[in-house]
C-alpha cells in the first residue's frame, strides 16, 4: 500500500506531494486545514439561497441545470426496460420542445451499464456507474476493485465510488486515501484512458463540516475527478451548506495545485428552486469556470421533471402540470 501512498497523484509541484507519505503526515495535513464554523457556513448558504433568479437568468439557469443532471436510477427493482426508458428520457427530456438540452449522464448500477450504453449510442450522454459495493461500501477491497473494473469493462464513462466511511470516522485516513487511489487505477481502460472518477463521501454519515472539508481534500489529493456528497440512500443527503463547503474546497485545491475538480451534490434536490440555489452557490463561489456539466452535476431523478415544467412555464407563460411531462 505504501507505494501507492507515496505518490500523491495530481499535485506535482504544489508542495503537497508528500502529504500522503504516511498516516501521520496525512493526518497532520488534514487536521491543519482551517476549521469550519457551522453557524457561519449555514448562514452564508441561506443568504445565497435568497437570490432572486428571474426571467432571462432563470431561463439560462434552467437549461444549465438540465444539462448538468446525472439522471439516476439506483433501485433493486431496476430492469432493462426501466433503464432504457430513463435513457430515452435523458436523450429527449421534453419531446414537445427539441430545444431542451440533454442531461449530462445516466447513472445506474454496474450490471445496467451495458444496457444504458447501448440505449445512448450515438449521443454524447455519459454512462455513470456506481461501484465499490455502493451504497454502504462494506466489502473487501478486491471486491470493490472487481466491481469497478466490471463497470469500466462494460463501458462506463464515469465511476461513482463510495469511500469507506468507517475507516474515515475511525481516523484511518491513509486507508481511505489508498482505496481511492486503487479504485482510480481500476478505472483504467486497456487503451490507457481512465473512466472519470467521482468520489462519494456520504456526508450525512460524516456529520461534521470539519470532516467534510478534510475528506474533500483527501479525495482530491488521491486523484478524484469529482467529489460528490451522497448516495441518496441515507436520511441526510446533499444540503446547501455541505455543497458550499465542497465548492470552497475545490476552489482552494485549484489555487494550491492548479488542478480543477468537479462537484456533484446528490440526493434530495427535487425542485427548480433548489437547483437555482445550488447554481447561485457555484456562481458566487467559483464563477464561470465551474458553470458547466464538466465541472458541476446534479445527482437527481425527480428534479428533471420540475425543471421541465418550469421551462414550459417560461416558454408558454402558463403552468401545465405533472401530466404534461413524461414519467419514466
Amino acid at each position: 500500500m505504501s507505494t501507492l501512498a507515496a505518490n500523491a497523484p495530481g499535485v506535482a509541484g504544489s508542495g503537497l506531494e508528500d502529504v500522503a507519505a504516511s498516516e501521520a503526515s496525512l493526518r497532520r495535513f488534514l487536521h491543519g486545514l482551517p476549521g469550519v464554523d457551522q453557524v457561519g457556513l449555514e448562514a452564508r448558504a441561506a443568504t445565497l439561497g435568497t437570490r432572486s433568479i428571474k426571467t432571462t437568468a432563470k431561463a439560462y439557469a434552467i437549461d444549465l441545470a438540465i444539462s448538468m443532471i446525472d439522471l439516476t436510477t439506483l433501485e433493486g427493482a431496476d430492469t432493462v426496460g426501466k433503464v432504457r426508458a430513463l435513457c430515452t428520457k435523458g436523450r429527449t427530456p421534453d419531446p414537445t420542445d427539441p430545444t431542451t438540452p440533454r442531461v449530462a449522464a445516466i447513472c445506474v448500477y454496474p450490471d445496467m451499464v451495458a444496457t444504458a450504453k447501448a440505449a445512448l449510442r450515438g449521443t454524447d450522454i455519459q454512462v455513470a456507474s456506481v461501484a465499490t459495493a455502493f451504497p454502504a461500501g462494506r466489502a473487501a477491497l478486491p471486491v470493490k476493485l472487481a466491481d469497478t473494473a466490471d463497470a469500466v469493462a462494460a463501458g462506463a464513462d464515469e465511476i461513482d465510488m463510495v469511500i469507506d466511511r468507517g475507516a474515515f470516522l475511525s481516523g484511518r485516513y491513509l486507508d481511505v486515501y489508498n482505496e481511492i487511489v486503487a479504485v482510480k487505477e481500476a478505472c483504467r481502460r486497456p487503451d490507457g484512458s481512465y473512466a472519470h472518477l467521482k468520489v462519494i463521501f456520504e456526508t450525512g454519515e460524516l456529520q461534521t463540516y470539519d470532516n467534510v472539508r478534510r475528506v474533500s481534500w483527501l479525495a482530491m489529493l488521491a486523484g478524484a475527478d469529482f467529489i460528490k456528497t451522497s448516495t441518496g440512500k441515507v436520511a441526510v443527503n446533499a444540503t446547501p451548506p455541505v455543497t458550499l463547503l465542497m465548492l470552497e474546497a475545490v476552489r482552494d485545491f485549484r489555487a494550491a495545485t492548479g488542478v480543477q475538480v468537479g462537484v456533484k451534490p446528490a440526493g434530495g434536490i427535487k425542485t427548480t428552486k433548489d437547483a437555482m440555489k445550488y447554481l447561485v452557490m457555484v456562481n458566487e463561489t467559483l464563477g464561470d469556470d465551474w458553470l458547466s456539466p464538466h465541472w458541476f452535476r446534479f445527482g437527481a431523478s425527480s428534479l428533471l421533471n420540475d425543471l421541465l415544467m418550469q421551462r414550459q412555464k417560461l416558454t408558454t407563460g402558463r403552468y401545465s402540470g405533472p401530466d404534461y411531462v413524461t414519467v419514466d
Partner: protein
Amino acid sequence: MAKNTKKTEAPAAAPQAPAEPAGKPAGGLFGYAPAPESPAAAGDIASSYGHFIGGQFVDSSGSEALKTVNPATEQVLAEFARGTAEDVDRAVAAARAAFTDWSALPGSERAKYLFRIARIIQERSRELAVLESIDNGKPIRETRDVDLPLVAAHFFYYAGWADKLDFAGYGPNPKPLGVAGQVIPWNFPLLMLAWKIAPALATGNTVVLKPAETTPLTALRFAEICRQAGLPKGVVNIVTGDGSTGAALTAHPDVNKVAFTGSTPVGRAIAKQVAGTRKKLSLELGGKAANIVFDDAPIDQAVEGIVNGIFFNQGHVCCAGSRLLVQESVQDELLDALKRRMGTLRVGDPLDKNTDIGAINSAEQLARITALTDAGEAEGAERWSPACELPGTGFWFRPTLFTGVSQAHRIAQEEIFGPVLSVLTFRTPDEAVAKANNTPYGLSAGIWTEKGSRILWTASRLRAGVVWANTFNKFDPTSPFGGYKESGYGREGGRHGLEAYLDV
C-alpha cells in the same frame, strides 16, 4: 499511477452546452436579471407630512418644511414639517396627558397593545420594508430579512415583559419615569424606533420621538400603525424635524427621560444639556470596532463576518467592524479571500432583491466618507476596491479596503460610517487586544478563532459593550446592546434595556 486531471481535461465527451444560453448579461455566464421589488408596495406616500400628536396627524405651528429624498435616485419623496419648539411642547403635553392612564394600565393590558403593534408590523412588513428601502437607500434584502423581522421581534419581546416587570430584577412594582424624549438616527430608522418605543411603552412611559431628518417616512407610517392598533391617544407622538427640533425635545423641562442614538458630538451636547436636571439619560453613540482574526480562525466564515461587519447597511452601522485586525501569519491568505469575496458584492438599485450594497443615505454622508478615504490615501494607506459600476444618479460609494493602515491614521481612529474597511495587523494576542482597545470608542468587537479559550481570554480584555465571537452584527432583542467610553452609556435590549425606562 493514475495521471492527474488537469484543468483542461474534461470528461471524454461532455454533453453539449445548452443550445443557446438565454439571457447572458455581461460579467459572467450567469448574470442575474433585474429582480426589482415594486416601489408601489410602499403604499401611498403623501406629498407632505405634519406631526403625529395626541393620536392625530397635525400641522406644524411653523411653516418650514424639509424634504426627504430617495438617495438612490435623488428624487424628492415627500415634504415634512420642521418641528418647532412649540410643536415639541404640544407633543410633550400630549404625552404627559396620556401618561396617567397609560401607566396605570395593568401590564397585561399594555402588552396587548404591543403584541398588536408587533403583529401589524409583521402583516405590513413588505410595505414597511419597501418604504424603508426607498427612504434610506438600504437594500431590500436587508430591510426584508433583517430590519423588519427585528422590529417585530423587539415589540414581541418587550410586550412579553410588560406584565412581568416585578421579575426583572429591579424590585417589586418598578415605576415608569414619565415622558420619554427620544431622538433616533437615519441608519436603521424603524429598528431604532422599535428599540426606543417598545421598552418605553412596556414599562408604562409615554413617548415623543423625533426621527432623523433624512428618514422620517417609516416613523410616520408607524404612527398609522399605532392608530390601527387602537393605541390610546398621546402614548406615542412623532415630531419630525432636524437637529434644532431634537434639541428642543431633549431640552424640554417636562421630559423625564432622554434617549439618543447618533453621533458622539451630538451625544456629548445632549449630555451637557441634560446635566444638572433630573432627566435620566441613555446614549448610544459612535464606534470604531475591531474585528480580530486570529491565525486559527475559520477563514471562509471569517471573510463572511468581515464583509457582514463592514458592508452590511453600506457600513452605516455604529457597531460596524470598521477595523480589521488580522494576525500577520494569515494576512495574505485572508486578504486574498476577502478581495475575492468583495468582487462578488452587488452594488446598485436598493429595490433589486439581489443587491448587497445600496445607496449612501445622503450627499452629506457621501461627502464625509469621501473626505475620510481621501485622507487615508493622503496619509499613505493603500486603497483597493473591486471593479463595479455605480449608477449615474444617487449617492454611491464602492466597497473599499485600506491596507497598510497604522493606528496613527485617521481612517483607523475616526468613525467613517461607510463601506470602508481599514486593515491593521498584529503579531500576538496581547498586541491584538492593545490595538483593539486603543480607541476612544467601545461599542463592539469581533473575535475569530476556533479556540474557545482564546475567545474567552480575548473577550474578557476587550473594552466594548458587545463582543461577537465567530460572528458579527448579530442582533437579538433579548441581548443588551450599548457602549463603553465615547460610545455612550445605558443598554438597550434584553432585561437590561428595561432599566433605562424605570425609576430605579
